[in-house]
């Protein structure tokens, strides 16, 4: 479990995150949502320690990241996997080498075992056929999948994803969502996924944290998302295509029902208009 308490981050006097507290339980898909510039990525990077928070606490099973020594952070990071927005695969290595890299650095497995583990991870994301290719030779969706395989190579306890669907078509996005949800469930990982894609939220999200202009406006289960009175959240949620389509579909059903009713009335009372 990861607990964030009163986290704030300031960049040269500009408060980007303001007193955020949230809890991320393991084995479920935790999502941080919010519009662009709301501080989602900064929040995620503070959580993993890539950006140093100005104040607050980030507790990993009760241990505060902000007071840890460098060596302790290094050890904690070996339990983390992260999927970056642009995949961040190493250009000079093939897909297989990318996935093997964390194993090469930190596992005590033999070369054969490391290779086997990397192939297992690639198979888990259906990418074994591209193992010999370089990142520049594969598509964006494949890069994301390779990055997921690399993130899970060391069997992480915590998985962080920054906009896993950005720049992908809806079909590939669904595929990535399915993969992430499957991996999180199968391995009981504590996950935090940053996204502004409501399709993803509705597909796989379970626990949602909504950020708006650096402030946590709402936190709760996905099912209660529609019941919230928070104006900013409503605006954000109903601006998305998913709900627009639902609304349009509802409108169309209403219209059809109305037309059916008129038709029925006309049939029953042919004289009446």
């Amino acid at each position, binding site marked *: 479990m990861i607990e964030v308490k009163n986290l704030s981050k300031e960049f040269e006097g500009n408060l980007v995150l303001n007193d955020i507290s949230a809890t991320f339980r393991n084995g479920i898909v935790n999502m941080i949502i919010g519009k662009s510039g709301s501080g989602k990525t900064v929040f995620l990077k503070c959580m*993993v320690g*890539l950006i140093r928070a100005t104040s607050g606490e980030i507790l990993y099973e009760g241990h505060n990241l902000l007071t840890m020594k460098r060596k302790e952070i290094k050890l904690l990071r070996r339990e983390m*996997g992260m999927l*970056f927005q642009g995949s*961040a695969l190493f250009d000079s290595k093939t897909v297989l080498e990318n996935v093997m890299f964390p194993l*090469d*650095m*930190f596992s005590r497995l033999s070369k054969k075992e490391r290779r086997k583990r990397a192939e297992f991870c690639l198979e888990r994301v259906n990418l074994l056929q591209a193992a010999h290719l370089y990142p520049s030779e594969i598509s964006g969706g494949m890069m994301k999948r390779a990055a997921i395989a690399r993130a899970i190579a060391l069997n992480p306890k915590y998985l962080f994803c920054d906009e896993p669907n950005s720049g992908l078509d809806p079909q590939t996005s669904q595929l990535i969502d399915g993969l992430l949800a499957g991996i999180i469930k199968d391995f009981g990982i504590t996950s935090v996924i940053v996204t502004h894609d409501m399709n993803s939220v509705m597909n796989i999200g379970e626990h949602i944290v909504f950020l708006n202009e650096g402030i946590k406006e709402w936190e709760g289960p996905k099912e209660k998302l529609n019941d919230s009175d928070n104006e900013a959240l409503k605006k954000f949620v109903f601006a998305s295509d998913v709900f627009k389509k639902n609304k349009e579909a509802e409108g169309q059903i209403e219209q059809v029902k109305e037309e059916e009713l008129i038709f029925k009335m006309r049939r029953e009372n042919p004289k009446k208009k």
Partner: protein
Amino acid sequence: MSLSGLLESVGEYAVLMKQVLMPPDRLREFFKEFLKEIHKLGVTSIWLVVIISLFIGAVIVMQLALNLTYPFLPSYTVGVVSREIILLEFSSTIMCLILSGKVGSNIASEIGTMRITEQIDALEIIGINSANYLILPKIMAFVVFMPVLVVFSIFVGLLGGYIICTFTGNPPVATYVYGLRAFFREFFIWYSIAKSMIFGFIISSVSAYFGYNVHGGALDVGKASTDSVVINSVLILMTDLVFTQLVMG
């Protein structure tokens, strides 16, 4: 750049070097990267060194032969002076200035691109000391390979002079060779190699500093690359002055 900005940069550079100059996480991976960098930074620079040294060596001899025409100077002076120029300054300092353009911009742009594409963050998340993993093999490789490039440059530079003497006969080949061997001090070779190793450290570490601290996008990578070459050139010239005074003065 203001004084406070300069001091801040020096401080950042010192902190980065503290991170870099640590024992590697995995020696096996370090040696793998070290050998790759030897090839990328050193071996691929040999042709540049050979071509430039050959022509500059030839031109130095040609210029000296045409302009050192005082009757009281012995004809082998051309060989002596061209040897000293190539050995003391050209093959170490001028060649390093040229290499700072090729190698320095390569290092700065490579690390800078890794920074803006979050590859450095990815290393950190895996639990790797990214500065140590990326920069140490480059510094070590370039410092270790620098003497090889200097020796190549000295040899090919003198060969350029030999070739020009063969074709023009001014001075005659035998006189030129006699000049090369006259009053030779072996110490100059060690001096040249030591100097080039210091320059090798400056080029690789300063360029890595600029690349590692890139913030922004492609334009910033280009700027970091240019800045690294400019600062490297200034530092090389200043270090040359100080080192020469300390060792030769």
